[in-house]
């Protein structure tokens, strides 16, 4: 598959500030206020005010969670987008990383010098349960009559991964244990805990092989980034974090027609991003990664899709401690979605924010042991469809 290799980029692009709200099951704040809280934090860290921002990018996944359509317009004043060019992006769960990707091209093209990128999600308004909303992503003719639940599809992928690669539930549960433990050091975390593999296996069995503690919770939250061109970045901070590569790909919606053990669409997106960043051997050159982990096996799935481990090898490396914070390639040092929470669009932005702090050695107790130079984050969305990848360096 041919990917982009020949790009004329007008200005190098850097992230100069990041902000987060706490991730929680139910928030008092309206969606606008959540977006404002995160955006203000990001601006404070960057030392900028709203006047210095040229453009705004907003990411918010299905409107059907909040019950307010035209989410971009609704969140606009909370994201500082009044009287400014505003773009709303949406690729389901992939939105989280697609927000900085979109902000990247606003700056790289020379159109804007500074961009405020906000990802926000409020899932608690939907009743009886936000998971019910996912019912409406299925094909109405072929799938809905069978009355499915979103977890079925993840269970099917997990089962296929286990069958093809020989991994067992105990091996995969280690991801959940690792991430929830990592999240203990994260002030934004919703479900940080010190659990064991046994706790995971004994938790409520939802859809075999998926247990309650294998999945990330329903959350409300917001996260924001300030992205600037090289000139502005060097004035504002001593340690900008450069966006070296971006990638995004979409597959078809017929997940019943493809091999579920390997995310090919993510692989294409990753190749696109690595090519742009000039990385040829990701498993050697990437120092820290934040793969998207709404379910524990998904982290392994994505690690392989991002070429940080060979297909079917990730679970073996996990057992050896390769992906711990003090391991050779730490993944999800923030605690990931399993530990911190999963507000659909904001989760990916949270991961990019985490890498931003890691690359500036500002992550405090969550800082990984080894020196870090290059990092990669990915998000995944829709019906096994969208892969978005971003490569950062300091």
């Amino acid at each position: 598959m041919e990917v982009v290799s020949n790009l004329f980029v007008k200005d190098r692009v850097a992230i100069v500030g990041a902000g987060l709200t706490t991730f929680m099951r139910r928030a008092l704040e309206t969606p606008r206020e959540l977006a404002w809280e995160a955006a203000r934090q990001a601006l404070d860290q960057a030392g900028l005010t709203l006047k210095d921002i040229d453009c705004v990018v907003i990411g918010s996944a299905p409107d059907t969670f909040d019950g307010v359509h035209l989410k971009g317009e609704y969140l606009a004043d909370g994201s500082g987008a009044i009287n400014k060019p505003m773009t709303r992006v949406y690729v389901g769960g992939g939105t989280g990383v697609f927000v900085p990707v979109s902000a990247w091209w606003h700056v790289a093209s020379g159109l804007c010098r500074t961009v405020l990128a906000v990802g926000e999600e409020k899932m608690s308004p939907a009743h009886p349960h936000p998971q019910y909303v996912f019912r409406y992503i299925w094909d109405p003719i072929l799938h809905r009559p069978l009355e499915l639940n979103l977890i079925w599809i993840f269970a099917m992928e997990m089962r296929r991964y286990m069958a093809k690669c020989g991994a067992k539930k105990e091996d995969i549960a280690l991801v959940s244990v690792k991430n929830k433990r990592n999240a203990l050091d994260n002030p934004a975390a919703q479900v940080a805990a010190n659990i064991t593999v046994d706790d995971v296996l004994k938790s409520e069995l939802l859809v075999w092989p998926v247990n309650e503690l294998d999945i990330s919770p329903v959350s409300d939250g917001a996260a924001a980034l300030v992205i600037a061109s090289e000139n502005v970045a060097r004035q504002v901070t001593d340690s900008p974090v450069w966006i070296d590569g971006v990638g995004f790909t979409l597959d078809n919606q017929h997940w019943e027609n493809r091999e579920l053990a390997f995310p090919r669409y993510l692989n294409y997106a990753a190749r696109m991003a690595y090519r742009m960043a000039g990385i040829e051997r990701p498993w050697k050159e990437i120092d820290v990664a934040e793969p998207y982990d709404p379910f524990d096996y998904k982290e392994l799935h994505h690690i392989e899709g991002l070429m940080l481990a060979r297909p079917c090898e990730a679970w073996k490396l996990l057992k050896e401690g390769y992906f711990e914070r003090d391991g050779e390639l730490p993944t999800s040092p923030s605690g990931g979605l399993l530990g911190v929470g999963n507000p659909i669009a904001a989760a990916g932005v949270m991961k990019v924010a985490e890498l931003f702090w890691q690359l500036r050695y500002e992550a405090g107790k969550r800082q990984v042991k080894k020196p870090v130079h290059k990092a990669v984050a990915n998000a995944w969305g829709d019906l096994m469809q969208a892969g978005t990848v971003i490569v950062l360096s300091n």
Partner: protein
Amino acid sequence: MSWDKHGRLHDLVFWPEREEVDKYVYTPGLHGLELAKALVDGKVLGMKCPDGKVYVPPKTFCPDFTEGQLVEIKGPWRLLHYTVVYEDLYGNRLDKSVVVGIIKPDDADNGMIHIVNVDPSKVVIGMELKPAFKPKDQRKGTITDIEYFEPA
């Protein structure tokens, strides 16, 4: 380019579906909660921003992203704009037409949308109005605690 489109509707299968969820529950927000408490007491709140402007209802943050200060709005209220509504949401004719207007208090810089309880022929832009609250035991903290605005 040709394709086998028959163009016959009865060849197509239709699937009826209902939208989305059973219901949505919206929280009022930070300043919204304070406004709800004030409405139960029969008062209206607004928000004062660093540049001196006062906004009603209060929104927690100002256009320059700083947090706004809550202030009480005392009025007097004047009608800024209005329109007369003859049909309901489904297109049925209303028995009695309703006047909906934007009503601005003198001590704030913008107005609020609400129903104006005045005969359509007697509406004048700039006329002074006052909020008519429901009886105290019926107030729930939402904007409908003010039943309508009526001539002062």
